[in-house]
């Protein structure tokens, strides 16, 4: 498929005639010639090529170090954490949003003196489930391969209301933590609690999220209107790894943080 000895058969017939003629004239009739020929090809790098030993042995210690770090057990998953086990919230999404809120809050408090109110991630930002069994840093790389940082966004009450409306209307389940959204049986908003208190549209809120969702701007739909953004220089993946190290056993279930009454 890839081993095309590629040549310029895409050219129009006329051009072929022109350039072959030129080639013929220049390279064979005239001493003051031009570039006579170009060959292009794409060579696949596959198992038919031997590996250079000195390169392999140079890479080995780097790879061994990565494997040792990524594959050493940090925590235990008593059950699989999935992204499709609930209607409005999932065990894997809840685990990630809980980690974000829990790990970002003390740093944000130390840096600004403010309390975090809730956390929001996007469904697509959680790239993998976690299977039952030993949990390693490699899981964190699978879940969060991108270099996304934790950002804390300050939002007005009305902007939070808009964000809640976006979460309700979204076709995918976006993970949240620190907030409870209850819909009535028709899917209309019944109640919102933030940190156990009823939502107050007259105050501002501090929301932990991924810098990707903040920089994505209004087109992504999450944060259309923000008052300020604080960067805490903390990779989401590192927050996940730090949490794995602290937690002996991972805990998160599908719960009532975002539900629709029947």
């Amino acid at each position, binding site marked *: 498929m890839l081993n095309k000895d590629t040549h310029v058969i895409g050219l129009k017939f006329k051009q072929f005639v022109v350039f072959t003629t030129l080639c013929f004239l220049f390279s064979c009739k005239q001493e003051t010639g031009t*570039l006579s020929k170009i060959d*292009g090809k*794409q060579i696949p790098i596959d198992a038919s090529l031997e590996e250079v030993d000195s390169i392999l042995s140079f890479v080995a210690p780097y790879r061994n170090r990565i494997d040792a770090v990524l594959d050493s057990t940090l925590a235990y998953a008593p059950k699989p954490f999935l992204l499709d086990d609930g209607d409005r919230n999932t065990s894997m999404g809840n685990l990630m949003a809980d980690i974000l809120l829990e790990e970002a809050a003390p740093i944000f408090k130390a840096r600004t003196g403010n309390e975090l109110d809730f956390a929001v991630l996007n469904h697509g930002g959680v790239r993998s489930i976690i299977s039952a069994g030993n949990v390693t840093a490699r899981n964190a790389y699978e879940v969060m391969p991108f270099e996304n940082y934790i950002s804390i966004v300050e939002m007005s009450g009305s902007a939070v209301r808009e964000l809640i409306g976006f979460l309700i209307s979204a076709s995918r389940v976006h993970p949240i933590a620190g907030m409870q959204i209850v819909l009535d049986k028709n899917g209309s908003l019944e109640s919102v609690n933030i940190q156990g208190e009823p939502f107050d549209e007259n105050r501002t809120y501090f929301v932990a999220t991924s810098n990707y969702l903040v920089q994505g701007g209004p087109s992504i739909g999450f944060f259309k209107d923000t008052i300020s953004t604080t960067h805490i220089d903390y990779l989401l993946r590192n927050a996940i790894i730090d949490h794995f190290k602290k937690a002996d056993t991972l805990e998160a279930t599908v719960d009532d943080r975002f539900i629709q009454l029947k």
Partner: protein
Amino acid sequence: MKRRDFITNTAAASTLVGLGGFSLNACSGLGTKKLTILHTNDVHSHIDPFPSSHSQYPNLGGIARRATLVEQIRNENPNTLLFDAGDIFQGTPYFNFYGGELEFKLMSKLNYDASTIGNHDFDNGIDGLLAQMPHATFEMISANYDFSNTVMDGMVKPFKTYLVDGIKIGVYGLGIALDGLVTKRLYKETEYLNPFEIALDMERQLKEEEQCDLIVCLSHLGYDYENPQRPSDTQLAQLTYHTNLIIGGHTHTFLEKPDVRINKNGDSVLVNQVGCYGLNLGRIDFYFDADKNASANGVSISV
């Protein structure tokens, strides 16, 4: 219509094979010089081959294999240059752990001659890129990123010339607009300049002042876009006068064969890109006659 195209193409191809073969035979006594240009793009920290269990690229890629291939080709033709079109960084834990150190060290071991800078090469910030520069024995080339007000000032050249077996090759680099792709926090005061204006300036300088026989652009602009406002390699090829080869990246485009476009002078320009992740090595062989002037009009085809 389809059938007619097929017949036309077949006729063209066989004509070419015939004439190409003839002209090569006829010219073989003229002291032909051969320059080989090898290239990769968007390797994204893929150092090991993909695992055999990988659903898309099982047991493909791997820099230790690429090293063998490059060595073979260099043994066959010492007049070989090796380039990369950017996005060296980001994609495996090798980058997360070592920040690009291993990528640069290995490219140096393979004797890469130069690379341009991709958007992901800013992923650890401009300071993160600077930190790895001591590990690169190859040149970093970019003409349309102005690093004057950054820590990378003086570390990147707009172009570089190589004298290989009496053939002078000029290579300039072009990078993609960073705004919207890379956080400002990472690229800081790096200034993105219009790639087309810079390209015209570079190729004129390489042609007229440096008297280059062959001009190569290492581009991380991307192969082709639906939106004509977005600068691309295909557009660049058609807007320039002297550039012979555009080695592209960014769009991870697997071209079955190098694309040929016609430039402002009516000459052919090759545009090539070899996908991503070190799955392929691009190889372009240029044959010069004794007078060593390059013009892609003289392309002949061998199959």
